[in-house]
């Protein structure tokens, strides 16, 4: 279990407990976080669950795969902390993870 803190572009904070093995995207979508379109539902196919990971946490996550890096080319205003939240799988080590949800996802 990891408590994940979602911060929306307008500053709204949502804290959600996410079970081990469940992605940050799935936890956020099921928990009602706005701004995660996540159209493909976690297949890594759409690049619409983009988040910015808090800099303090970037190195604590497993590095993105080459597929995810290819997908990150499609997101709206990416930076060095950009990740697809469907590719971040929760476990106890991620307790307290902070991610920022961008103001928009790039539509398909």
């Amino acid at each position, binding site marked *: 279990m990891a408590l994940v803190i979602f911060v929306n572009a307008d500053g709204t904070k949502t804290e959600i407990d996410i079970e081990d093995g469940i992605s940050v995207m799935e936890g956020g979508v*099921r928990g009602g976080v706005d701004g995660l379109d*996540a*159209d*493909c539902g976690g*297949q890594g*196919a*759409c*690049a619409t669950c983009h988040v910015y990971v808090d800099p303090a946490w970037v190195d604590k996550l497993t590095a993105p795969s080459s597929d995810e890096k290819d*997908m990150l080319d499609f997101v709206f205003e990416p930076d060095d902390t950009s990740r697809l939240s469907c590719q971040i799988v929760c476990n106890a080590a991620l307790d307290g993870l902070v991610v920022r949800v961008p103001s928009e996802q790039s539509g*398909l």
Partner: protein
Amino acid sequence: MVEQMDLTKSQEGKWVREDKKRGLFKVSRDAFTSQAVFERENERIFNKCWLYLGHSSELENPNDFLTRNVAGHELIFNRDRKGGFNAFFNTCPHRGAIVAREECGNALGFKCFYHGWSFNNNGKYATRSPKGVYPEDFGKEGDSVDLSRVPRLEQYRDFHFINFDADAISLDDYLAGSKEILDIVSDHSPDGMEVVSGVQNYSIRANWKLLVENSFDGYHAAETHDTYFTYLFDAIGGTPEEAMAKMTGQSNCYDYGNGHAAIEGEAPWGRPVGRHIPAWGDKGKEDIAAIVKELEERVGVPMAKRISNGDRNAVFFPNLVINDIMAITIRTLYPVSPNEIHVSSWAFAPKGEPPELRKRRLDNFLEFLGPGGFATPDDVEALESAQVGYGNAQFAPWNDISRGMLKEKPANDDEEQMRCFWREWARRMEAE
């Protein structure tokens, strides 16, 4: 003035003959065997009528989905992230493969296993490809690559129906008076009703309309189901005569319009919603008394009487059966060919029913309604036997469905309910 029936001449495209004056109703056996009739039924009935898809209780939460074949179409029935109900054709817009391959589950999206095309669970295409692979506006200019939606999806009392005809009348108008049956079975419990998990799927080597008739045939019960009634009286004690003496003798047939009809009466078996039998013991008697009391307070005494003590068999044209008898079954039946039916049956029960009561209900369901029970195998034998008998149609061409036709008020062991079905069938099939 009704023309006298001439059963010596065959008439192309006419299968149903009715002589109201003499009280005769005949159906050509060609309607049960002909490939041309089967194809016309697909075009004029299954592509035009409202067909049962499922019940809300099968999709309790947002993102729940199930897959189901309806009239030969593989479908996804689901709830999207906002909780809305959807019916999609279960085929990838890319090359056609089945997109959702599980019977049921909970998913935010669907991914085709063939090339990996992915979709939001609201049907929206959700697959990113490298730039230049597809046009920039791919899928946006009348070339949709979203999952295709079934043209119509509407519900009444948590029963969801689809229609492949975008121009069909509303479900509400279509169901007409038959909504009474959906109301009655939905009102069995103050906590709502649910489809019990699991389904009975089986096939019969007979024409589907034989099972339509059989599903609300009060006339055949004693003759065909002797095994069941012998077992039943062994189990509940007493004799058929004693059981008959206790009954009120209510016996009704309801013509609900648009080909929907039901029969209603009173049978010797116990009803878990309000008719006790000695086999359930003193505790069972108390349980049933409490259920009846709650019903009376909630729906009033007359309706409580119908719900607790009335056994009813209903057919919603063309092929949804709801039998509210010793248990409740929801049954659909589809022709695979003129000579084969696929049947699906679900048990329907109060939400939160205590285990002891649920056990009685499901025992009842298996004993009589289930394909391995004491009754359905007898029906299957009768239907398959009739289908074999139709091999003689050239020399014995007519079925008789005249029973009770001259009565002012047909009874539940007459055949008026079948005539309601056949009149609607003929209206659709025999039109120019």
